[in-house]
Structure formats: structure tokens, C-alpha cells
């Protein structure tokens, strides 16, 4: 039930605190009151018609870089 998906903001409607997000080609209007002001191109975590948080792409990059460091000495061929 706590399934929530990242959606890209493709239309902003500040007048009624909503925006339209696109998730894998599907669009849906969601409420943005819980995340404040949103901008086109931002990613929001959508759950039951509400944005519950913004997705921070810089933090995502930091995590990916960390994995690169962790895995720099792992051999992906060891598991078949």
C-alpha cells in the first residue's frame, strides 16, 4: 500500500496546488500541498494522488557514486 512512484512534473498549476506528473508515459494530476512549490522537470514521489516528497537528483548521484566506490573491487562475474 505504501507503493509510491517517481513522476516528472510536466505541468504546474499553482492556483489549485496541483501538477501533472508523468510516470513511464502515464500522466496523472496530483496534489502538491505536502511538497510546496514545484517546478517543471522536477521529480516528485506520488502516492494515492498526492506528492509526498520531492526526489533529490543530487542525492541520487551521490548514492550512485558511492556504489561505484564500493564496487570498484567487486567482480560481477562471480555470481551466475
Amino acid at each position, binding site marked *: *500500500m*505504501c*507503493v*509510491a512512484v*517517481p513522476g*516528472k512534473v510536466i505541468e504546474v498549476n499553482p492556483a489549485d496546488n496541483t501538477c501533472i506528473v508523468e510516470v513511464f508515459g502515464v500522466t496523472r494530476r496530483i*496534489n502538491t*500541498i*505536502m*511538497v*510546496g512549490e514545484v517546478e517543471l522537470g522536477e*521529480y516528485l*514521489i506520488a*502516492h*494515492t*494522488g*498526492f506528492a*509526498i*516528497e520531492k*526526489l*533529490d*537528483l543530487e*542525492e*541520487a*548521484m*551521490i*548514492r*550512485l557514486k558511492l*556504489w561505484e566506490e*564500493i*564496487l570498484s573491487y*567487486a*567482480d*560481477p562475474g*562471480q*555470481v551466475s
Partner: protein
Amino acid sequence: MQILDRFRDPVVGRALLVKVTEQAKEVAERLGRRSVFMEVCGTHTVAISKAGLRSLLSEYIDLRSGPGCPVCVTDYGDIDRMVAFARTPGVTLGTFGDMIRVPGSFASLEKEMAAGADVRIFYSPADAVEYARTHPDRHVVFLGVGFETTAPGIALSILQAKAQGVTNFSVLTSHKLVPPAMHAILADPELRLDGFILPGHATAIVGRNAFQFVADQYNLPAVVTGFETTDILDCLHNLLDQLFQGQVRVDNGYSRVVKDEGNVRAQALMEQLFEVADVSWRGFGVIPASGMVIRPEFADFNAEKRFTVNIPEPRIPKGCRCGDLLKGKINPHECRLFGTACTPVNPIGPCMVSSEGACAAYYQYDRRGQ
């Protein structure tokens, strides 16, 4: 989305799996047993089983499912109450789809639909408010089921109904809080855990700090994580590392979404609409301060204040071990009904019904057992 696609990169996933397998083996050798980690989120339960991690790592890690599926922990009495509302003349019962097939003592909402009750599935409680606005001849009772992830949206929908003057909308709450259930699990001397995989989206609302007690009070590591296979492997890497190094921290591996303090706007919405109450969990009984009920000042939107329904004493089906499963005491394979009398087509317990139930996930992805 290119950055996010990299979280689904099979090359990264495979390399992380190698790393985690090596680590898990080392930890198992040191402990003289498998390490035991519990996930307390139904979405994690499904993600772990679907990715095959449970079976791939089973030699060294016991990945236990906890009370992470809000549908599954909804008690018989609460389902019976929902069924009673569905039977109430003039009521349209609105619900998320997950609840439809969950059995109560005597019926399910699906059976009530078949018998003619007006039960409707809504993607969002806001859609239910709109339905109520456009159907003034009906009273829409929406089922407020879910953890901290879902409760702020329900709160907001009540505020929307109030602002729009929609008086034929109310909520039957069965909201639950994750941390008190974890306290209940950790207080059980029978259960030996080595760490927690913390729910990414409930924690997005309450914040990482809300789970600091796992380290401070119970001396166990815990890691907040996302829902990609790589996220979960990263979380296991962290938990195993802490275990190996003898460290105890509550870390945030899902920092692209979760903050230490959580979403304060969402917390304020919950605070405005709900007050904390002792509520009953399937398998656990009543857990103190583990649920949310609508505050008296919003009583007009509280279905239980608008209608009186009578429900008989709940009846629990014989042989069903969903309760033990939700407490992490058994895996689905240890229930004698699993896969025989209890299947997704003919479910006996809620854990086989809900798409996020551990039994349904194990049946679909881990049926061969550990």
C-alpha cells in the same frame, strides 16, 4: 530519468549481489548462524521476493517479513466494521483496491459487492471526495487504511471536503503507525533480529530520526532504503557492515527521498486531523499509541460518529498463522495452509490476499522455499 534508470542497472545489481554475498558469508561464519534482518514494508517484501534476493541469499541471510502490509495488519473486527458500513443503506463505501478481498470474520468487501453493496475503488481519497460532491444522494464512507505514508493524504482529503462544503463524505479510520509495531516486535524475547530494513516511504513522512530508537533503545542497526533491487542490496551491505564492525546506527540509504526530519508539512496535516490512539493489529492485539483516529473537532467527517453499526464478536479462522507471520515468528512456508488450503485464488488469511502480503509474495516468487 537517466539517473534513476541507473538504480535499475543489472550490472550494478549483480556486482552489489556479489559484494553482499561475500559479506553475508563472512558474517554468518563469525556469528555461527545466518544473520536475520526484518523488512517492515510490504513493498519491500514484494521487491525482495520479486528480485529473488530471499532465495539467492538464503544460505547466509534470513530475510524475515514483519508487519509491513497495512492491509494484512487490519484486524478482523475492523474488516467486519467495514463490511457493516458497506451494508448500511445510502452508503457508498470507497476504498483503495487492496482492501477488497481481505476476509473479515464473516465476509469481505468483494462478497458484499457481489451481494449488491455499493463498494467503489478509488485511486485517491481526493477522487472519493469528488465522487461525493457529484453524488449528493449518497454518503461516501472512505476507508482510511495505511501507515504514515497514506494518512496525510486522507487528512488532506478531509480538509478538501470541508473547504468544498461536501457534507456527504466521511472516513472510517484504521490508520496505523510503524514505530510502535517495531517496539512490540523488539519487546518479544522469542524473536532474535540483527537489524531492520526500514520502510522508505513511511520514513519519507516521519523522517529517519523517528527510528533512531532502534539503535538507542535496542542496540540494533537499521537502514532506511528505497525499492529498487540495488537499494535493497545497498541496505543489506550497510547492515552487514555494521554487524561485522560491531556498530549500531540508523542510516539513511534513501536520501534522494528521505530526510532526517521527514516531511514536516505532511506531519502537520496528520497532527491537525488525527490523534494517537491504542488500536488493535491483526496478530498483535492492541498496541498502545499505535494508531490514528479523527480528532473530535472533525467529528462530522468521522464515519463512526455519523453512523452506528453493530458488529458481532470477530471469528478467527482455524489454522491461519498470519498473526505469527506478521510478528516475524514464521515464514509463510511454515504455515501448513500455505500453498495448499490457502492460495491467492482461495485465500484464508490476509497475507495471501493483499498484493503486498508476505504469503502472496512468497507464493508468486519464493514458492520452492528456503
